[in-house]
């Protein structure tokens, strides 16, 4: 009795906190837009800086631009939804929500800071909570998955850190700050090394082929909320890093070497899609489809055109929300039916229409149905990539575009097997539809998807200035040998 009370208290605190985060981030957005309308053109707004390790030039300096703002909004949304979805958690509640909050904090910190060291601090702060979340509340081969996830991410972050030290030394040990380093003109030889280090390192976080294998196992063993965070937020940390650090700070190398990642991304997109087609387990399916979808992000970033980068950012947010919704729906089904095998399910739409509909919506989003966020972001990536002339880039774009068919195939298979059809298992006739918390979470995420999908111009307006900045740096880069 007492325990139940206590748990409820904890949950309500978590809920209040995450709702507050959402409110605050919305407020910030409003302020930001107002400032921009008054014509402020600094790259980062709301800048602040506190001394941390002065001798090492490490300052806790923060600043927000459109891209990070978009990320923050997405994070806040997903976090709130995650808390709501995990309302039914009844084992080690305190620890669970504590770890969730740590994760969300690390994400916020990562997005708002402009100091590379602090960025790395938050990047790595996010690793261990994932390990524990999967290990302690997970299912299946949780030991293996959690350990693999932790180690691969650690390897990625090691690469990232080496790259960051490189940048620090390239600045003559004067600054870790993105804005200062952006002013530098780093010799191209250095750039090459650092670019590869950083992009690959962040790529591991983004589950870039061939460093993606932590994603399927991790997602499949993770509890619902953890999967939502993992695919929704953590992968975006990597993507954001690829854009903000690797590409933006090392334009010369980006122009020379981005082809490598274009290849990897195209492989990831098409091969991830085909691999998804063969999955029976819904979570595995969505994990692989995430691999395929974040491929679009990498592709957009690596194509180095303004439109493509815009598309990449859109895709980050869109995929963040969409995959969160997908995992939420899968999780709700799993909580009830206790199986995630598509062929063992069936008739869900008949028995639990709300959840079934949520599943269908997320599915349609992920296959890029107009009106949902997936469509606009993918189309932007395609149009942007097509601006890159040359048979190689065109080929990559066509390959990527081809994946929309495969996506349709596996999404519809999943819907056909799991959601439509007759109720095969008599047990399922007892299933109850979504609870209030789950409904709220779903509605929140759907609203997010719809806002981007129906009014993309708002989004583009938000990030336009910053993508321009990045693009300017990319084209106006002078090679130093």
């Amino acid at each position: 009795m007492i325990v139940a009370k206590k748990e409820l208290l904890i949950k309500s605190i978590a809920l209040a906190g995450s709702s507050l985060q959402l409110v605050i981030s919305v407020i910030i957005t409003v302020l930001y837009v107002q400032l921009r309308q008054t014509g402020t053109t600094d790259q980062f707004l709301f800048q602040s800086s506190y001394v941390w390790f002065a001798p090492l030039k490490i300052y806790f300096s923060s600043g927000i631009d459109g891209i990070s703002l978009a990320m923050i909004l997405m994070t806040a949304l997903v976090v709130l939804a995650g808390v709501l979805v995990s309302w039914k958690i009844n084992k080690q509640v305190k620890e669970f929500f504590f770890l969730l909050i740590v994760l969300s904090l690390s994400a916020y910190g990562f997005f708002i800071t402009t100091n590379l060291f602090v960025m790395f601090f938050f990047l790595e702060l996010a690793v261990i909570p994932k390990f524990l979340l999967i290990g302690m509340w997970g299912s299946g081969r949780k030991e293996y998955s959690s350990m693999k996830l932790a180690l691969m991410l650690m390897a990625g972050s090691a690469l990232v850190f080496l790259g960051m030290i490189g940048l620090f030394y390239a600045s003559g040990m004067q600054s870790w700050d993105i804005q200062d380093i952006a002013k530098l003109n780093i010799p191209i030889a250095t750039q090459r090394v650092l670019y590869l280090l950083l992009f690959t390192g962040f790529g591991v976080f983004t589950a870039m082929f061939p460093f993606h294998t932590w994603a399927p196992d991790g997602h499949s063993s993770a509890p619902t909320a953890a999967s939502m965070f993992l695919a929704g937020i953590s992968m975006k940390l990597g993507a954001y890093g690829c854009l903000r650090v690797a590409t933006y700070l090392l334009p010369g190398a980006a122009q020379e070497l981005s082809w490598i990642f274009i290849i990897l991304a195209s492989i990831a997109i098409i091969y991830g899609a085909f691999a998804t087609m063969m999955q029976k387990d819904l979570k595995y399916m969505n994990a692989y489809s995430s691999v395929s979808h974040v491929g679009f992000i990498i592709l957009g970033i690596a194509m180095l055109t303004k439109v493509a980068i815009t598309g990449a950012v859109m895709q980050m947010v869109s995929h963040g929300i969409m995959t969160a919704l997908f995992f939420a729906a899968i999780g709700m089904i799993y909580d009830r039916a206790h199986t995630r095998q598509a062929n063992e399910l069936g008739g869900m739409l008949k028995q639990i229409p709300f959840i079934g509909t949520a599943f269908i919506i997320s599915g349609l989003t992920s296959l890029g149905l107009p009106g949902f966020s997936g469509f606009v972001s993918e189309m932007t990536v395609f149009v942007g990539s097509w601006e890159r002339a040359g048979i190689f880039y065109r080929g990559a774009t066509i390959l990527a575009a081809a994946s929309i068919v495969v996506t349709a195939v596996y999404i519809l298979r999943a819907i056909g097997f799991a959601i439509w059809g007759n109720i095969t298992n008599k047990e399922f006739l007892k299933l109850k539809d979504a609870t209030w918390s789950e409904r709220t979470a779903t509605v929140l995420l759907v609203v997010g998807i719809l806002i981007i999908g129906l009014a993309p111009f708002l989004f583009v307006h938000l990030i336009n200035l910053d993508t321009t900045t990045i693009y300017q740096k990319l084209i106006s880069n002078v090679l130093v040998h």
Partner: protein
Amino acid sequence: MNSYELSSLLIVALPLMSFAFLVLLSKQLKPRVAGIIGTLTLATTAILTFYVAAGYFFGFGMENGAYVHHIALQFQWLKFSDNLSIDLGIVLDPISVALLIVITVVSTMVHLYSLNYMHGEEYFARYYAYLSLFTFSMLGLVMAVNIFQMYIFWELVGVSSFLLIGFYFTKPSAIAAAKKAFIVTRFADLGFLIGILILSHGAKTLDFFVMIQRLTQAGSPYLAHFTATSFLGLSTLSWALLLVFAGGAGKSAMFPLHIWLPDAMEGPTPVSALIHAATMVVAGVYLVARLFPIFAISAPDALLIIAYIGAFTALFAAVIACTQTDIKRVLAYSTISQIAYMMFALGVSGWGEGQTEGFTASIFHLFTHAFFKALLFLGAGAIIHAINSNEMKDMGGLRKALPITHITFLVACLSISGIPPFSGFFSKEAILSAASHSNMLVYYVGLFTSGLTAFYMFRLYFRIFWYKPVQDHHNHEKHTWAMNSALLVLVLGAAFAGLIPFGSFVSATGSPIILPFNPSFSVVPVSFGLIGIFLAYFFFSKESDRADKTVAYFGGFYRAAYHKFYIDEIYLFITKKVIFNLIGRPAAWFDRTVVNGILINGTAVVTEAGSEAIKPMQSGKVQSYAMFFLGGVLLLVALLFIQFM
């Protein structure tokens, strides 16, 4: 914003509203109420459409002797770059208005009809929601000002069709059909998308009219750059247009992408009438018509290819239609064949003076076909409703049981077989004469096909309403006012739509043309039609073994046609065997075994092995420790001296 623009906005907006309304309140509303709301909304849009159409054709549409496109509304939805952006908007021009009439009228009728037909269905409200969604997307598609807007609504149409085909979502066959329809069209849309990308990059715009203007003007730099490069003898522009056409071919079920349409008949019959007969399937025709100037002026070779594909599909589908026994499938194949008619009509048309009649004829046929084909489907629906089967063998002699259906069906059959004075006659004449002027081969194919058409349609007719009456059926006419009125309204269209002087309204250039009509030309096609009808009468008017004899005579060919020339099997082979087993499975395997197994787990194994390998070092013997110590010293000496030297 004048009243016309406002009402044209309402035309799109109303169905969307009713969709939203019905979805959100699907639980609360009583089914009947929901249905009536949907129907009334559509009726309103239909009325508005007529208002707008009248306004356009007899008022603001005409500028110095030619109809020009009128942008009722346009706003930037998603800006890619300075010259590329997705605009949403509403354009009024002859073809769009014509399509508006078709869509709203047929859709209204279907809504009305469904009130009875779908009575007592679970998810009744949801059905109406989907119908409204479809209507909304179709209208948006037709009114698109921007090729990307068209693509957006193109996808929406696809998904709503998917939802409607899969309306009986507990029925495996329905699920399969829905998936098939969506995936096949999606595959085609990929072509469309790439086509758009190429076009947009070449024309530096996504706006239809700017694009047309830039790619048709002689000596425009865009056009020059486009036609400069060529691949396999076709210019880049032709390739782009062909890719776009591929999208159209997917929706309009041109060979070889036609396979989804027959299966789509799994959906409720009114849906088939609306989507898979009258409206969505003609989207491809509309798309080509929309880009017609570019086709005709800058890429006639692409147009020619379209003509041949159309002609072949027309014949091919007609042959299959002769052999099917499921009445809805017969109608489906006839639909394919008829749409192919429209396609090749566009294909044979050109741009110069007097060559554009094919264009008009195509849209004309689209117009008339919508009515009689919808009528046929709704009639078939009535029959199925009455006897709960759509197999021919369960039918026969129903003319007494279903008088109204009988009459309306007969009219429709005559119309589709091109028997004067019914509507089909006029449009088909126009098409054939256009073909005869430009391409004899296509003309002959079309001619023969029209004969076949008459044959299989009347085979259907006789087999259902005459032949050997089936007893033990409670064959009273179950349908009530709603279904009947729908049939009766449509029969008017099927009968008299042909009398409209279509050419004076719709033409490629906008300036009115006169569709040639000379009885001397009509003799041949009509006689072909009559022959077809006679043969059908000969075989199927009463029970006999004549049909079977002939079938036996045709033998292998008949079987092939009966099995739709095994196209489905080929597709099945490609997907199941090739895609799944040769690509999907290996990909999944590769990921688990190679990437994960070797790259990732391999590292772990190697580390373990290393740890085992250096185990002996820690032997526990002080002396061996000391030896390692000395070894270390030597190592240091070596290192230092290497540096020192």
